[in-house]
């Protein structure tokens, strides 16, 4: 039997390894963004890439998110496979025309004649004391747009496998990374080559009494809540959709049918957010098997405040998920 060599990598190391491997595999892959070369981004996720691949393939850009995202669209149409780095997810607002009106529509508007194989890597997540313009989780915005694919890895293993798939995809893919995970979250990553297909949810923990559907930063929160629930004799299943689009509706619905109770947890805004979409999918698909309304838990509907106790109150926590789960199961 082939022994699988597995090491522990941080989330950031897993992202970097995926980028380096794909750049070695395919000379068309290139990276551009602000401070991506020698600086390796403020998060140091790209450290070492410019040394290996040179400034021809790892290009520092001006602070022009719309401009370099638009350039990526054109480059992707004509033979390169660009990866753009949008340092903070809040800055995707500056790229909206390029992503929504250009990247997402080129293939369709041209009747399939042109393709846009590009990746936008960006971040999400609060609790970094960065204030209202550096802390948002805006993945719902892109998930709303046909023509884009949206990926939200929650572990180093998923980050590497999904990013490699994103780079090989023929469509514009937006890849959201939780910036709090870059150095803080470690996990096993095999040394062998692997990719993870889009549209396949991962059951992070098998359970019986309630399903916690969680994305990105909220997967660890859900797993922590499941531990707390276990101490009270409740068995929670944690399902990570991994990609917002394509969405693995089947796995979500099956888990809901099995447990009959569901909480959907996501760090984006709850109102009109991905929690609403996932809750609707489950309500439509598992209605007759549900014993309680599907509950949503997302960020408070306020700009993210700076003051630590205020900021911490804006996002779901292990404790708040635990309490909502108890209540949903008639235990509180």
């Amino acid at each position, binding site marked *: 039997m082939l022994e699988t060599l597995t090491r522990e990598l941080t989330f950031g190391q897993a992202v970097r390894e995926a980028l380096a491997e794909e750049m070695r595999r395919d000379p068309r892959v290139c990276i551009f963004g602000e401070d991506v070369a020698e600086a390796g981004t403020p998060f140091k996720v790209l450290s070492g890439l410019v040394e290996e691949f040179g400034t021809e393939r790892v290009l520092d850009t001006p602070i022009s998110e719309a401009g*370099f995202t638009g350039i990526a669209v054109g480059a992707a149409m004509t033979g390169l496979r660009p990866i753009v780095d949008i340092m903070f997810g809040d800055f995707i607002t500056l790229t909206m025309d390029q992503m929504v009106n250009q990247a997402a529509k080129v293939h369709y508007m041209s009747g399939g004649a042109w393709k846009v194989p590009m990746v936008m890597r960006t971040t999400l997540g609060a609790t970094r004391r960065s204030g209202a313009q550096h802390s948002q989780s805006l993945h719902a915005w892109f998930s709303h747009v046909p023509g884009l694919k949206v990926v939200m890895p929650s572990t180093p293993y998923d980050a590497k496998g999904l990013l490699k798939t994103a780079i090989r995809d023929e469509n514009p893919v937006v890849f959201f990374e939780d910036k709090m995970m870059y150095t803080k979250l470690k996990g096993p990553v095999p040394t062998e080559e692997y990719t993870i297909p889009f549209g396949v949810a991962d059951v992070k923990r098998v359970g019986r009494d309630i399903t916690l559907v969680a994305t990105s930063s909220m997967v660890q929160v859900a797993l922590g809540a499941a531990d707390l629930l276990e101490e009270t004799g409740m068995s929670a299943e944690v399902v990570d959709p991994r990609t917002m689009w394509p969405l693995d509706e089947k796995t979500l619905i099956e888990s809901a049918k099995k447990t009959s109770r569901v909480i959907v947890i996501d760090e984006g805004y709850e109102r009109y957010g991905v929690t609403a979409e996932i809750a609707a999918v489950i309500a439509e698909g598992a209605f007759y098997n549900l014993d309680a309304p599907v509950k949503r838990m997302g960020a408070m509907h306020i700009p993210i405040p700076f003051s630590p106790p205020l900021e911490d109150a804006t996002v779901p926590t292990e404790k708040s998920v635990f309490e909502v789960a108890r209540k949903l199961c008639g235990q509180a």
Partner: protein
Amino acid sequence: MTTATDKSAANSETTAGQWIRMYRQMVSVRLFEEQVNELYTRALMPGLAHLYIGEEAVAVGVCETLRADDYITSTHRGHGHCLAKGASPDRMFAELLGKEAGYCKGKGGSMHIADPATGNLGANAIVAGSVGIATGAALSAKRLGKDNVAVCFFGEGALGQGVLYEVMNVASLWKLPVIYVCENNLYTEYTHFSETTAGDIPARAAAFGLQAESVDGQDVRAVYATAGRLIDRARREGGPSFLVCNTYRYTGHHVGDINREYYRSKEEEKHWKTERDPLKLLADWLVAQGLADSTQFKRIQSEVEAEMKKAVEFAVAAPYPSVSEAGEDVYA
């Protein structure tokens, strides 16, 4: 096939045959647009129709200096660019009518014609929407070691969009083979450009280090010579440039813009049509040089008329796409 080098010398080496070909191309654009007007007013064409009549010398003068593998991006007023780059009228009309046989299977329409075979990256209905795409295509050309170039057509209304300046900055820094062609037809929709545009137009591009020039956009010989020189410069790795073509839109912003006296006078329109018409200017020059006579022009007119009539008949008779086609081509 002619090469870039022999075209770049422009006027001195341009043969009578080439000038007559350009005359025919301009007639094609004009008669195409007259048919569009007819289709639209007969309610056979859905949506909006933005006519290029009056501006023919710009598209033809520029595109005649391009190779098939050079790229263009175009605008909502883009029929002239598509035709001049080599698209065929029958499939263009079919696209305008939303037919399956159209360049984009009817999914794009008048404002989104795209065609990889002629290097047309697509017309764009967002003002300045394609400046990133054209610049990205130039990046691909450079990175992939090809000597093709990208031409970005836009109206002077695009001068109001910040993304234009973002990408010109990058094009200059990275010395990309892109030519920004600003068609100043004096009116951004219904407003004279002087009300929306401060300072000197070429100076804006010159400030970023682009080679910036202005040309009489009604004189196809001048456009051809200047564009040829700038394109050749880009092809020889001389960097990006910016060309203002001063021109005039004979008709309204769109076909329905009939009563225009609140923003421009009939005298002004008459002046441009009688004194500054690009077809007449070239024809007069050819006659004066003894290179052509009026019988040739009449023959071209009747040949192109017949071609356009046939193309319209093809498009009108062509079937609509099947409704099941709506969900195709969203993703590659």
